[in-house]
Every structure is written in structure tokens, then in C-alpha cells.
């Protein structure tokens, strides 16, 4: 099984430059600088069908073509390492165990788009990882992979780490840009898109850590080889962060299109051999799916969309039959309520309202009309906000209520949890 990103890493001691070079690292950069044109790089990425690994799944090669070609002045590439989606912990491991893959990917991306400067925006809570990235960049700079006239070419590129302070909203790409600029992390209204008006008002492309980290392999082995690892329109391998009621939670890099059942087996199967109840296949903001549907689904963008959810960031949250879906949703709703930036009305006011209703239901104060109210409010939030946080808050609510409505109704009528003895009765 080909692993694009973590192949050859032992998970602890192989993150340094010498180890990366020993694995064939920076060969892709040498290849690029010894004769490839920026267009050829972009074409290779397009061929690979690499799609944005941060959650939206936008074709990476196409995104790179949005950058203005003949722009006079600085252009930026920015890496979104602000991994804050509940259930997602893949970028942290890339930064920790293979940071040079990201650095090399960003250098190649900068070459392809004519960028002179890059920022790697790292989630605020993973300080030790930030420190390791600082070391890695310093290694790359000392070795001549970063800075002026890289490897003796006419191409110059500087890369800096920038750590945030843990606001989930700073993972939204324009809020991230605001944060780098030293402002309050709040999303910008789009258009204009970052490719025309990005960091400091300059053309900017923002990609996820895993996306950039996939690029060296694509250049080295060709886009077609990458595509063939996965499925048409869903190229490559992908890291899945499997968590929840499984025996071996962790990151698993598998080819796109791997059946969920296989992934679950790799993760050691269900804890205590219990029955699978539900799975959130792409991080907490994606719709939940009942376990029996997931067991029939493959792990790629198109298959999961067909099943009614989204691949998102690849965070697979597995829940067994002891899980109270009301309690689960309450916890998710609290997260979005807490992390809403407060800039625009539907999200600022709606996320708190959703949370309070679910909180009431969970605590035996629910009313039957609350369920339709939840769906109505979700409708009124989704698609009405400046950024996708509103959608992220609404989608779990709709899917939880729609797939597990009986459980919510039981909570309301019996003022206690359906899953029985696993949870004590809620105070009325």
C-alpha cells in the first residue's frame, strides 16, 4: 500500500532533514528546479486529482491557476495548519513526524505560483509542534532549500511559521489571513477571494498541510501515479484520523476509496465488540451517518457524498450503541456556539440558540416542537453566513435529528436517555 505522506516514517525519530533526504526528500524540488516550468508543475498537480485535504475537497491544481500570473509585487502561499476540527489530528502528525514534506510541498507550490513568501499557520495549542517546525525550517534554510536562489536557481522563497492561539475560526482561510496580519481572527466576505486579495491584500493561495505534503510525491512520481493510488477524481492516499469507540484510534493513511469497513478493521474494530451505531466520516461539522450505511461506504469524496455526508478533513468519529445521540449533539453544538466568531448574525445568534435547545432536551426540558425548531433554525443558518462555520454548526444538527429523531423524541417524552443503563437518568 503506497503511503504518499507518511511512507518511510517510523512515527518518532525520522523527522529530521537527513532522514527526509534519505527517504528521497527534496528530490522533487531538485526536479522542479532543474527544468520544470511553473505550468508543468501545475499540470502535474491537476493530473493527480489532488483535492484540498482541509475539508472542502476543492481541486488543488485548479486553485493554483487562480493566482494572477503577471502580478507585480509579492504573492503568498499560506499553509493552513490550524487544525481545529473536533476529531481531526492528522496535520499535527504530519508537522510532527514529516515536516519537511510540507516544507518541500510549499516551496514547489510557491515556484508554481510565483510566490515569494510563505506562512505556515500552526494551531495555537500544539506548541511543541510549532517548535519542531521552527527547527525544520531552519534545517531547510541552512541546507539551501529556502531563501534566495534556492539550489543555485533564480528562484527565491522564504517560509515562516506563525502560531495562532487556538481559535477554531482561524482555520477559516480568510480569518487565518486576518490573524497573520495581527488582527482579530474573523472571516472576510468573499468575493474578493484570496487569489486576488489575500494576505496584506496580495494574491494568496491557502492550502491544507496534508495537501502541500502530498505535492512532493506527485512531482517525484507523476500525477498519474498519484491518481492511480486512489480513484478517478479522488486521487492519492489520504490520512484518516479515526477516533471514538474503536480499539486502536489513530491516524491511518490509506488509498482513497478504501472501504470504511477496512479502515475500521485497521483501527482494531469496535471497542468491546459492540455494535456500530453511527459515524461522522469527515470531522464534526459533517453530517453524521448511521453505522449500517457507513459499513457499505468507501472512503473517498464522491462515495461519501453519495451516502449523504462529506469526507471533510478525514476525521472519522466512530460511535457504538452506548452513545447518546442527544448528548453527542449537545457537545458538538456547544463547540460551534463557543467558537462562533460573532461577526455575522445567523451564526452568532443561531449557534447559541441551537445549543440551548439541545441542552434543554438533553436535560429533560425538551418540547416536541423543539425538533422542528432545530431543523428550521439550521435551515436559517446554513448558507446565510459569511463563512462556513454556520454551515458546520447546522449540518450536524440536521443529520442527528433526521437520522436519530426517535432518540430525541424519547428524550423529550421520557425525560431520560434511550440508551439506558450506560447513562444515568437525567435530572428532570
Amino acid at each position, binding site marked *: 500500500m503506497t503511503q504518499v505522506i507518511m511512507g518511510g516514517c517510523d512515527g518518532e525519530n525520522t523527522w529530521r532533514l537527513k532522514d527526509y533526504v534519505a527517504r528521497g526528500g527534496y528530490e522533487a524540488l531538485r526536479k522542479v528546479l532543474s527544468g520544470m516550468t511553473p505550468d508543468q508543475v501545475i499540470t502535474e498537480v491537476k493530473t493527480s486529482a489532488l483535492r484540498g485535504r482541509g475539508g472542502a475537497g476543492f481541486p488543488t491544481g485548479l486553485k493554483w491557476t487562480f493566482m494572477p500570473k503577471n502580478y507585480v509585487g509579492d504573492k503568498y502561499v499560506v499553509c493552513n495548519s490550524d487544525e481545529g476540527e473536533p476529531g481531526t489530528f492528522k496535520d499535527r502528525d504530519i508537522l510532527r513526524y514529516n515536516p519537511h514534506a510540507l516544507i518541500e510541498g510549499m516551496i514547489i507550490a510557491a515556484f508554481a505560483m510565483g510566490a515569494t513568501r510563505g506562512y505556515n499557520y500552526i494551531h495555537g495549542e500544539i506548541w511543541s509542534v510549532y517548535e519542531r517546525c521552527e527547527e525544520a525550517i531552519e534545517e531547510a534554510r541552512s541546507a539551501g532549500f529556502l531563501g534566495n536562489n534556492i539550489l543555485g536557481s533564480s528562484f527565491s522563497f522564504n517560509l515562516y511559521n506563525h502560531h495562532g492561539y487556538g481559535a477554531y475560526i482561524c482555520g477559516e482561510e480568510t480569518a487565518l489571513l486576518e490573524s497573520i496580519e495581527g488582527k482579530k481572527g474573523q472571516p472576510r466576505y468573499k468575493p474578493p477571494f484570496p487569489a486576488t486579495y489575500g494576505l496584506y491584500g496580495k494574491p494568496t493561495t491557502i492550502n491544507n498541510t496534508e495537501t502541500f505534503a502530498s505535492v512532493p510525491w506527485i512531482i517525484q512520481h507523476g500525477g498519474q501515479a498519484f491518481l492511480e493510488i486512489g480513484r478517478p477524481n479522488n486521487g492519492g492516499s489520504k490520512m484518516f484520523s479515526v477516533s471514538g469507540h474503536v480499539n486502536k484510534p489513530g491516524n491511518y493513511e490509506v488509498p482513497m476509496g478504501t472501504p470504511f469497513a477496512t479502515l475500521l478493521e485497521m483501527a482494531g474494530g469496535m471497542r468491546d465488540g459492540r455494535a456500530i451505531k453511527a459515524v461522522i466520516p469527515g470531522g464534526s461539522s459533517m453530517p453524521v451517518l448511521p453505522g449500517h450505511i457507513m459499513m457499505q461506504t468507501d472512503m473517498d469524496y464522491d462515495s461519501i457524498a453519495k451516502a449523504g455526508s462529506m469526507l471533510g478533513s478525514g476525521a472519522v468519529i466512530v460511535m457504538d450503541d452506548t452513545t447518546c445521540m442527544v448528548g453527542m449533539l449537545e457537545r458538538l453544538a456547544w463547540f460551534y456556539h463557543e467558537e462562533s466568531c460573532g461577526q455575522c448574525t445567523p451564526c*452568532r445568534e443561531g449557534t447559541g440558540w441551537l445549543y440551548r435547545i439541545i441542552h434543554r432536551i438533553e436535560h429533560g426540558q425538551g418540547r416536541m416542537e423543539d425538533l422542528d425548531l432545530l431543523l428550521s433554525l439550521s435551515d436559517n443558518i446554513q448558507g446565510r453566513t*459569511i463563512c462556513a462555520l454556520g454551515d458546520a454548526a447546522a449540518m450536524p444538527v440536521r443529520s442527528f435529528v433526521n437520522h436519530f429523531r426517535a432518540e430525541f423524541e424519547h428524550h423529550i417524552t421520557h425525560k431520560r436517555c434511550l440508551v439506558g443503563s450506560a447513562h444515568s437518568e437525567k435530572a428532570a
Partner: protein
Amino acid sequence: MALLNIEVDGQTTQVESGRTVMDAARQLGIKIPHFCYHRKLSIAANCRMCLVQVEKAPKPLPACATPAAEGMKVSTHSEYAVNAQKAVMEFLLVNHPLDCPICDQGGECKLQDMSVGYGGGASRFKEEKRVVANKDLGPLIATDMTRCILCTRCVRFGQEIAGIMELGVGGRGEHSEILAFVDQTVDSEISGNAIDLCPVGALTSKPFRYSARSWELTQHDSIGAHDGLGSNVVVQVKQNTKVMRVLPNNNDDVNECWLSDRDRFSYEGLNSADRLTTPLIKENGQWVEATWVEALQIVADAFNKIKDVQGADALGALVSPNSTLEELYLAQKLLRDLGSHHIDHRVRQSDFSLDAVQTNIPWLGLPVAQWPELKSCLIIGSSLRAEQPLLAVRLREAVRNGAQINLVNPFVDDLAMPVAHQLVGTPSQLPGLLAEVLQAVAALQNVTVSAALQPLMSHAPSAVAQGIAESLVNNSSCALFLGCLAQHHEAYGTLYAVTVELARILKAPFGVLGEAANSVGAVLAGAVPHRGPLGTHNAPGLDAQAMLSSPRKAYLVMGLEPELDCANPAAALAALKGADFVVALSAFRGQTPNWASVILPIAPFTETAGTFISTEGRVQSFKGAVAPQGQARPAWKVLRVLGNLLELEGYDFESVDDIRAELSHDLKALTKNSLGNELAAAPALKVRASLGTIERIGEVPVYQTDALVRRSPSLQASRLGSTVEVQINSALATRLNLKCGQNVRVRQGAGEARLSLRVNNAVPDGSARVPVGHPLTAQLNDANGVVNLEAAS
């Protein structure tokens, strides 16, 4: 610019590329509900109230932030759009208190209005509402932050229009709240606009609070009376008797939708306890109330007697430039009909050398609406934000458009916008500094400075002067303006002459920043000694300074507080107290009993009809909003009756219209033809070496411009109003052994003032900023003189 065809609600229109759906709808007269959008502010798109349906778009889009596209079809009131708008309204209301009955915004609240159209009859929200702590933003803005819908208009106003970020959004999500900086209030000179911008009752007017409901108030169009801009205002009156507040009236050519705090809050003074409501006369050394007939007869008799005994030359008149055109016209008519030309409104001016060479009326030189198009500009001697708060706003817009602002000033000024170059020196150095700029400009343009100004061309231009010159030369659309500090300067004529020469070489417009509501109108009316109405030239009389230094036997003083308004208060009081007879026409008692013989209560601008001509030459007439208080009468009526009692011909005016008609049947044309800043000849140059002592920079504090402003308790309590201090730089402070914050005694002539000292290196060495026009400094004399500083015991 490419034009795009766009269809909104079935109507088609064309908009320029880069405009939004909101722009297109406004162009068609289609109203889209909104809160955060404001045409003068940047786009925030945060309220989401303006969501509309756009064909082929997968979700509703905010009209304010969606760029128009060719062939775009928009529905603003389809079921789809209205559902989205109603949903947003529901969200806005969930945490908004239902306290309209006790909210000052009630009746003029955008949220209230919109909720009628888009709100539900009952709320689906059954949870607890959010409560947000109120903030102390100072004496002008009251807060009820629980009502805030976080549209951020106030925040954007501060950053973009006022040029100073005093408010921001703290916290996140539901914990978001509008905040000032820790322990700071909102102190901008135009802060009150945030009240107008606030679509809800979160920010309301503190002075107006709980005093009336908006629907009780009648609206009267009027004109701002406290600077030269001529801001259009609405005076709001309760029960036809009391002015309750003043708001801006939109006029994009003048004040746009803004108003300075001075014009907004000074109405408080109208209802001051210090208002005069009865004529006062002196009987046996005691002030007693009198009838108008008695009081006016005493004035007429006294004037007649002094004229008969001493001659008309013994009569003089000092009048306020904030008086109406009609009042000023009658005042000078009365004086001139009595045979005297000693009338002046320029009471703060000290150099009148231009009078001999200036035939036209000095004005702004460039219409206000064209300011934002400037690419470079030089302002000479001005505390611009205090003098002309809204002209500073226009310049800020010019800077946003790429303009460079340059200053030649007696201190480094904070204009709350980027300033390219500031050439700073003590007052006595200013003519030389300006001449350096002239020299550099002439060199760059390769022309010779006119012979008359050659004596000034001695210094090699400094790097800053060179920078200013390059800024002016390299930016084709530039202009030069002389501020009030220049106009009050003892070498005003010299500064003016250099400016004329600069403008000639640069082929640039130049002008003066008119100090008062009627600075242009006063000259047109003839309230100056060297020029009668309509420009008719008479034997020149004595100017405002000469009238005091060569005291008259009788004075007519209209609308002034001489101990505060005159360039040399000590000299003014001495002259008035030494006169045989002084009639004071004043709305306020103030210090008048100390120097007047008869006190006649007159109506301030809200209680009389009249005309102001703004500094850009805009003729704006207005009507009284309320009847005069008590026995007070409009000054034009007083002067008219006085004319009758003096048995002068032609005082049968029935209305202000009659007075204007006598002046001209086409005042606008007359004004237009009379404006002109060119000089007939060069004035006598005045260059003074530094006096070697501490030169006084005598600027008028922002809230001490006239008697009405001085009587607004809220303005006086604000940080700008309550901060009265001496400012010197650290080098001078060290030499004088004085420390920042300590109390110092300022001595000038026989007078002294005790003020707090602030060490501020924006002030050049050898000079001190000591404000004029303030009661605390009223004992001092010459605004341009020298002062001594010492520690107060």
C-alpha cells in the same frame, strides 16, 4: 469604466463595474432592508439583513457585498429573499431586549421599523436573553449595550471617518461586545455621529436622554453656527418652545451625513440659565430689568449725545462673525448712517495689513465637495480638527484616495490621518518656514519669486520644506489653505502674500478656512472697516484692534464675549470699561454687566430667521425654530428699532427678507461675484526675529469658539472640553525646571493664569501652547505675545 446591465425586481439598470447589487437597487429606488450597510462606510456584510435572491446562486446573497455582474437577475422581495430576511430578523431579535417603551431610540429605530415588516408576532425564542454591560463612553454618548446588534457601524466610523479607532469589537461569538479601550472614553471631535449611525438604541445621545420621544419633536432645517462649513442641520423642538437636540441634515456638497460634536451638542447652551430674557439697564449703579422701550431709548439718547458732542468718530462696533448676514448688515448700516466706519467682526485677528490690498471677499478657494479629489495639499497654521472637524473628514477621504497632506504649523498636529510632511516652528518662524517652501517650489519650477517677496528668500530650504515643495509640484491637483492660527498670526499679511505667490507658481487654488458661520457673510454685509456692503469703499474705519488700542467713547457689541473672543482680552476690557457708553446685544449675561451700560437680550440663531454664507460661499438662509426666550428679540429687530429711534432713514424692514432684498435681489450671484482671494498688491511684509522668550501659541480650544458652545455642559465635560493646559516641549520644561502634570503660573502683562502643564514635544522649543478664549486664560492679553511660565506655589 465598463457598464453592467443588471435586473433588480424586474427593472433593469446599468451600474459601473465594481458596484454592488445594493448600489443597483438604490439606483432604481428599491429599498433592501439592512443594518450594517452604510453608503459612507466600508462594507461589512455582517448583519445579513440584505440577503436577496440572485438567479443561479445556490444561496441567498448579501446585496451590500455582492458585486453586480453582467446579466445578473436579482429579486429583493421574492418569497425566497423575504424568508431569508425574516430569518435574519428573528436572529437579531432573539437577544435584543423588548424594551422599546423605555428606549430612547424608540420611534426612530431601524430595528423597530424593520421588525414591523420582517419580524414575527411572537418569538420562538424561549431561552434567556443575553445581557451586556454598559460602557462609559464619556458625557456625549450613552450606552445600552444589551441592545447592540453588532453591526460595527460605530467601529468603522471611527476607523474610517474620524480617523481614530476608539471603539472595537471585543470578545467572540455571543460574548462579542462593542468596547472602548480600557479606561478610555470616545473623545473624537465628531463622535456624536456614532449615535446617528447606531441603528438601534445601543448608542444614544447622553444630553438628550429621556427628555423627549422622537415623535413629539418638530423638525426645523437650520445651519450649523460654529464653524465656517455651514453644515446643514435639523433643529428638533418640543412643544414649539424648547430646542431638544440638533441632528445633521444630509447634504453631500457640505457636511454629507455628518455633524461635528460642536454643532450637534452646543444646543444645550440655548437653554442655559445664563440666557438673558429681559433688557437690563443701570439705575444708581444697580442693574435693573427694563422694558425694551426704556432700554432702547437710553441707547439712542446715548449714541445721539456722544455723536453730537464727540462726533461720529467716537462710535465703534464689535460684532460676532456668528451673527446672521441680516444682523451684520443692519449693524454696519446703523454705524455708517451715524457716520462711523469703525465696525469689525474679525475680533481675533491682529494683522490687518491685507485690508488695503484685498478688494474681494476671502473664502475657502475650493468648494468643499472637491476636497476629496485633491492629490496634495498644504495647510498653513491650523489646528484643523478643532477648527474644521468636517473639513478634516474630507481631507481624510482625500488621503484614502492617495493624497499627501502637508502642514506648516506652530506645532506638530495630530490630524488622525497620515500626514506627509509637517514643517514646524515657533509662531515668529512661520513666515520664514513658509518662505522656504516657496523658495523650494520656485526652484523646482524654475521660476523667480516676485520681487516683493525677495526679502524673505534668505534660508536654504530644509529637507522638510523641500519635501512639501515636491509634494505640491509633483501632484497636479493641489491646494493651499490658511487656517485660523495663520489668520490670527501677527504676520498674517506676510503668510498670505507668500501663499498667493505659491499658488501663482503652482497654478493651484488657495483660500482661507473661514473661522465662523458667517465669516464670508460678514465681509459681504460690510461688517468690516475697509469695505462697505456690496464692496462699496468708504473712508476706511478702525479695525477690531485699532478700535481697542485707540479707544472709542461708545461701543456697540453684538454677540461677543470680549474677554474671551478678542485677540487681546485685557485691551478689549480696558477699552470697553473706559468708554462712556457700551450697549451689549447678547443672548447671554456672562460678564456683560462688568463692561456694558445697557444690556439687550437677543435671540441666538435658532430663534431668528437669517442667513449664513459659508466659507465656500454657500448662501444658506434659515428660519427660526422656536420663539425667542422671554423678552429676547432677534438682533435685526433690535437694530431696526434702534434705527427708528435714532431717526435714521430707511429702517422700515418688516422681515429679514426685506433686509436681504436691500442688500441684493440675487444674493447667490452677488456672493459668487464677490469672492476672491487675489491681492491687488503685495502687503507690507512683517518678519520678526524670535523674541527670545516664550512665544505664545494662542489657539482657540475646540469647545470655546463662541458663547453658545461655552454653555454646553456636556461639551465642556468632554475630554476635549475639559482639558485646558499649557504645553511646552521637554527642553523648555527642563530649562524652566517644570514637570509634566504640575500646576504652572502663566504670566502675560499684568494678567496671569494657573494651568496644568503638559510636556509635549510636538511644541517647538521656545514656545508654549496657551489656549485663548477660555475663562481660565481670560486674564492674559495678546494671543500672539510672549508669556512667562513658573511653578505655581
